[in-house]
């Protein structure tokens, strides 16, 4: 595709904690919708964004079951990004920092992301049109 761009996103925040995770997913989604190739380097708590055992819950206080509550889990957002990429021809290379995964015992993740290291991040930055680092505070 003429003019196809490659963007890299560096994510650090764990899910369920800050709006930065949501903003990051929104940005990645837009890039994928455009058919851009997208690299993601998830490190520290961000490796849990794709953790496969995330489970939506009911809300007993409000008397809502799981379906009614519709509690979002980030692994579904990540999975949707990979599905979207298949539709748009975007290549998504989502790397889970291996050290960060091991520290957290977070080795179970959904289909799509792969295990990697900071060396992948270096390669990403060298081969991308641009890189956005979304740091934690």
């Amino acid at each position, binding site marked *: 595709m003429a003019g196809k761009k490659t*963007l890299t996103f560096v994510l650090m925040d764990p899910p369920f904690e800050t*709006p*930065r995770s949501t*903003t990051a997913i*929104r940005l990645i989604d837009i*890039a994928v919708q455009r058919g*851009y190739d997208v690299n993601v380097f998830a490190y520290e708590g961000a490796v849990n964004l794709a953790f496969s055992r995330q489970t939506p819950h009911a809300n007993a206080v409000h008397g809502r079951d799981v379906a009614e509550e519709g509690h979002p889990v980030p692994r579904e957002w990540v999975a949707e990004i990979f599905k979207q990429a298949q539709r748009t021809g975007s290549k998504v290379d989502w790397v889970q920092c291996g050290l960060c995964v091991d520290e957290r015992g977070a080795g179970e993740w959904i289909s799509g992301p792969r295990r990697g290291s900071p060396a992948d991040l270096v390669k990403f930055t060298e081969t991308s*049109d*641009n890189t*956005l680092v979304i740091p934690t505070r």
Partner: protein
Amino acid sequence: MARYLIFGSCDPLEANDTARCYDVAASLAKEGHSVTFFLVQNGVFPARRNARSRALAALTGANVTVLADEFSLRERGITTDRMAAGVKAAPLDVVIDHLAEGAKTFWH
């Protein structure tokens, strides 16, 4: 002349160093760079006319383009008719435009 995209994701009332980010943006613009300051998440709070809006007015006065994420504004009930002068609502797509065009970025 370089192109910069700076993210303001913090409410200045909860993060004092936000003012330093505004200063960096204004300084870069003063040096002749093209600077866009993109407010997102709680960073959009000063986009609603209030005591902290003067800092944003100073930014626009310094030739910095100040944009506020439409989604973040909507989440926080900030309507465009209550926004500070010079600040424009924008979709997040603008960020991808800037990234694709090679803008230098930093996130606060």
